[in-house]
């Protein structure tokens, strides 16, 4: 039964490889990959519910007991992310069907997406730090390919930077792993946590924890986000949406995991430093979001704001604020994917990318326009859309712990988000219509459907927050109480 939790990783991989053999049959590839993602979403729901009834599920690969083998650990936090990632991917795939082009599709586009998902899911699920590195690499390699797929000049230009910076990040990851192995002599995260707690997190271990902070911050785009705006604004729309939704979340996940499970003993790092970094990220994101006229840049900097916001939840570190961050992560994955799809579709429709070059799209594409408005409200945290619950809980945590600066930054950022997106909305969606009926590119059904699906998701996630609250509460509880996780991993065979 526990084998179930490897499925979110192994199915995409195997299906991806099979699709390589099905190269010429594009339609078949589409159907199979979509079914795969929906299937994984279904499995994830099942696992998520099982976690509620049976507690954390773990799978020792090869039957080797922790800490000796590699294992997957499915707790509510991980599964929530896996579930959201699967849903987001499925929807982005639908968009890709009509936007990515047959040439790309025949160049293994779907296998790469599936590998990306596998890497992402693996990163969420693994309970072994070195395996996390490997899962990262699966995800990264796939992302390297996807970011260049198409091979336009800007893509090549940005992907070089993206790849080099990520290679450096991976290097730091290995250095950190080496140091950690040199000190605590183990790789299993729960076991590391036990050992770190046993001796107390002395200065050396804290130094190493900063190294992990550096690594995961690079992935998460926390403070070290320089690679992000460029690389998120060049790939094809569906890919950009996937990136915007998934990639940084993996880093965020890792930060949450390591700094709640392992290195939670030194608040100077786990709270103050992360708090400062989150704050700066937020400010930089806000500045970037209003600085530019290129839609893709505006959207990319909005990613930073969300990262800062989510990390503030960790920096505050109360159970409430962590729950808030979890809500917000789930929301952000959906809303960001939607935003990226909208931005990309807008560029596709007009052939322009600057906000002052387009206008009045609402006349030509009313539904599209309203979806943009919806996502604007959602990302600005306007209730009852999905961003709202997380925002309140983070705020609540901040007030309870007296982190007023972070509180102020977090909430002011919502205004900037609103401003930056309203600027797009008012300039492009509203305004004098510039596209005459003859020049109007027809809106492909395959492009608007995923956007609407995301729209429905963000509304229902807000209105139906109660449905996921039980999972979020459990996830936050596990994160706030490391012993829950440790007991599940180290507490004998299940």
């Amino acid at each position, binding site marked *: 039964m526990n084998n179930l939790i490897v499925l979110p990783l192994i199915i995409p991989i195997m299906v991806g490889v099979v699709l390589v053999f099905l190269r010429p049959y594009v339609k078949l590839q589409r159907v199979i990959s979509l079914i795969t993602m929906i299937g994984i979403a279904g499995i994830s729901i099942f696992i998520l519910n099982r976690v509620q009834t049976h507690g954390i599920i773990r799978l020792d690969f090869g039957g080797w007991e922790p800490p000796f083998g590699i294992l997957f650990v499915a707790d509510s936090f991980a599964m929530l992310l896996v579930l959201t990632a699967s849903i987001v991917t499925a929807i982005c795939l639908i968009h890709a069907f009509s936007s990515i082009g047959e040439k790309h599709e025949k160049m293994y586009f779907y296998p790469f997406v599936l590998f990306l998902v596998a890497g992402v899911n693996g990163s969420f699920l693994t309970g072994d730090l070195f395996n996390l590195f490997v899962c990262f690499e699966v995800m990264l390699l796939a992302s390297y390919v996807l970011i260049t797929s198409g091979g336009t000049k800007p893509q090549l*230009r940005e992907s070089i930077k993206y790849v080099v910076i990520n290679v450096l990040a*991976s*290097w730091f990851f290995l250095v950190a792993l080496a140091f950690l192995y040199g000190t605590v002599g183990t790789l299993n995260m729960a076991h590391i946590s036990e050992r770190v707690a046993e001796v107390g997190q002395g200065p050396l271990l804290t130094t190493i924890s900063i190294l992990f902070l550096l690594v995961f911050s690079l992935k998460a785009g926390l403070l070290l986000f320089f690679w992000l705006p460029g690389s998120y604004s060049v790939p094809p729309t569906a890919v950009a949406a996937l990136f915007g939704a998934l990639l940084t979340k993996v880093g965020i996940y890792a930060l949450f995991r390591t700094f709640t499970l392992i290195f939670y003993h030194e608040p100077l790092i786990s709270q103050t430093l992360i708090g400062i970094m989150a704050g700066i990220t937020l400010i930089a994101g806000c500045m970037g979001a209003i600085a530019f006229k290129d839609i893709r840049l505006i959207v990319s900097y909005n990613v930073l704001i969300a990262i800062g916001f989510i990390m503030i939840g960790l920096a505050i570190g109360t159970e409430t604020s962590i729950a808030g961050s979890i809500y917000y992560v789930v929301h952000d994955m959906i809303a960001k994917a939607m935003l990226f799809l909208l931005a990309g579709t807008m560029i596709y429709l007009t052939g322009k990318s600057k906000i002052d070059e387009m206008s009045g799209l609402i006349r030509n594409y009313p539904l599209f326009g309203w979806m943009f408005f919806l996502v604007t409200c959602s990302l600005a945290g306007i209730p009852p859309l999905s961003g709202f619950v997380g925002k309140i809980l983070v705020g609540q945590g901040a007030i309870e712990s007296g982190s007023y600066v972070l509180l102020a930054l977090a909430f002011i950022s919502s205004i900037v988000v609103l401003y930056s997106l309203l600027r797009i909305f008012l300039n492009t969606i509203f305004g004098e219509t510039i596209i005459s009926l003859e020049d109007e590119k027809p809106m492909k059904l395959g492009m608007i459907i995923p956007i609407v699906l995301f729209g429905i998701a963000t509304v229902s996630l807000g209105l139906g927050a109660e449905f996921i609250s039980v999972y979020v509460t459990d996830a936050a509880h596990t994160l706030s109480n490391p012993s829950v996780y440790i007991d599940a991993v180290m507490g004998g065979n299940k």
Partner: protein
Amino acid sequence: METLIIMLIGILVAVATYLILSRNIIRIILGTAVFSHAVHLLILTMGDLKKGNVPLLKEADAPYADALPQALILTAIVISFAVTAFILVLAYRTYQDVGTDDLDELRGARDE
């Protein structure tokens, strides 16, 4: 020995850092290669050096050298190879299409 190797690692890291800060893409790629050399040595050094025999049970007797870091390095070597291959191709594809191997000329358009 450990101290000596760590000093060497330090030099490798410094060289790699200097290389990766270059403008030329090949230098940068070489920088990443040197980085991986350094970290492979580092992982090995973090297990105890020379404190045991070859980890082949039929070949030698206990004590054995720490085999886990060796396995990790093996994985790391293969991964860094994969990445190097990719980045090399990326570099020359960029050169073919954009016409430069100079990162300063790959800044991209500014948005005012």
